[in-house]
């Protein structure tokens, strides 16, 4: 059994009176695409924020590569090899796409302050090396004609791709994608599916994603975790989870709720 890259053990976080995440445990195996699904407010993005170090768990812990993530500050998470995208795009609006992607290379920086101030040949070489890596990602995601555009002026679909590109530029081992297909049309979602598959197969990056689009989930995921109201409902392959009665209930309601929508057969029929 291959070792887990990331595991959450009995993870819980409480905000005031609200238990946003309650006793959630799961493993993400190396090289797989693991999806979190669940209705809105289930706590999926909160789990991401816990992994990124933005929130601290009130109970339980997360291990990454065997190492406890308890005292890792948010800015050190990228250095460990975890990159993420945000649900509501958090790009650097007043910079170009290229600059956004170059910022993604920050953890691989080799030059110090004084070298940069004098722009030594080493700095120049480092800049060119960073640019080469960024160009690989641009080619991978077809962002060539957006290189020098200001992010603020880009359409939503392109921004989502730039967000993912920026995360890829950090050369992560684990990529956290928060609703990668939200706001995208059918073609863009198809592209996204291919890219996620490529990220897994070509780049060898483990993907943990939150998603609502079930077709994308079925196409791309190896395993799925369904959450509702902060708790784990079911975990398994996409087919298993989608047929799990608890999951169906969380999304569609129980048989009693549905039956009230049926027309009452004893009522008068139209002539």
């Amino acid at each position, binding site marked *: 059994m291959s070792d887990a890259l990331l595991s959450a053990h009995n993870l819980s976080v409480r905000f005031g009176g609200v238990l946003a995440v309650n006793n959630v445990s799961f493993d993400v195996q190396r090289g797989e695409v693991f999806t979190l699904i669940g209705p809105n407010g289930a706590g999926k*993005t909160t789990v991401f*924020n816990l992994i990124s170090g*933005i929130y601290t768990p009130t109970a339980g812990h997360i291990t990454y590569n065997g190492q406890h993530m308890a005292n890792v500050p948010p800015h050190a998470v990228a250095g460990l090899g975890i990159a993420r995208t945000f*649900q*509501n795009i*958090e790009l650097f609006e007043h910079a170009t796409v290229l600059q956004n992607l170059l910022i993604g290379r920050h953890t691989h920086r080799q030059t110090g302050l004084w070298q940069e101030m004098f722009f030594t040949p080493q700095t120049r070489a480092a800049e060119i090396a960073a640019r080469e890596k960024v160009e690989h990602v641009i080619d991978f995601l077809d962002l060539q004609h957006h290189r020098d555009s200001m992010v603020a002026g880009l359409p939503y679909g392109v921004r989502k791709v730039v967000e993912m590109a920026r995360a890829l530029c950090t050369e992560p081992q684990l990529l956290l994608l928060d609703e990668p297909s939200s706001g995208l049309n059918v073609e863009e979602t198809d592209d996204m599916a291919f890219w996620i598959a490529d990220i897994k197969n070509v780049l060898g990056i483990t993907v943990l994603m939150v998603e609502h689009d079930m077709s994308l989930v079925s196409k791309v995921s190896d395993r799925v975790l369904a959450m509702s109201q902060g708790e784990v409902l079911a975990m398994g392959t996409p087919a298993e989870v989608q047929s799990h009665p608890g999951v169906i209930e969380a999304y569609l309601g129980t048989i009693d709720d549905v039956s009230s929508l049926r027309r009452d057969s004893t009522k008068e029929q139209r002539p």
Partner: protein
Amino acid sequence: MQELQVIFSGVAQGCIYGLIALGFVLIYKATETVSFAQGELMMLGAFCGLGAMQWLGWPYWLAVPSALLAMGLVGWLTERVAIRPILGQPAFSVVMLTFGIVYVARGLVTMIPNVGTETHAFPAPYKDVSFDMGGVVIGATQLVVVAATAGLCLLLYFTFRYSRVGIAMQASSQNQLAAYYMGIPVKRLNGLVWALAAMVATVAGLLLAPITFVHANMGFIGLKAFPAAVVGGFSSLPGAIVGGLIIGVVEAMAGFWLPEGFKDIAAYIVVLLMLVLKPNGLFGENLRKKV
């Protein structure tokens, strides 16, 4: 005994700071913009009152409400002409605009021949009255400051808590776009808030004028009101008053007990301590962006 007197004058001064801070916080709560112009509005309000009494010859009880009305109008106009067009710009731009207003207000007042550059005594009817309370001499000017501040606060509290306008203001401060969709006339409300803030500043000016006289540099006192707002928590109305009182008392005590020069910077040391210990102020909210 002298300590009590010092403390009381600190309380009175603190009320002034609190009133100006109240103006900032009103504007901040409603529009999440910071206005550095409150001090100047206070100065203009004092000049208005002075002008009504000295050059129009009106009695005090007429000059005060007319100054309030006039400054309310000025506040509303400022919002309409200068602030509304820049809705949607980053917060820093708005702050710089209020600095521009500071420059213009000071400049205009100093340009008025003979009046602007001099210091004038303010003929308030209670100016020379004082009470001797068991050895502690308290001027009526200070008592009126404290009483008026308390009254004004109660009035504002009830307005915000129970009136539709108050609730609408809170709504538009949290999410302008949603407030628009809900049918709240956001722009009109903003004008109202600025008018209100200007009137509060005018009250402060009219209360302060008998104590410090009326002159063009009165607005600098407004700078000390910022520490008051921060200490109280920038989005809390009662916090503004409490912050002002704290600053006023600390300042008065620093002037009395500490060596020369500490009085001027006491307010700033307090605010730095507060930012280190409790960045959101005493009553402030937790600022964190939800991603």
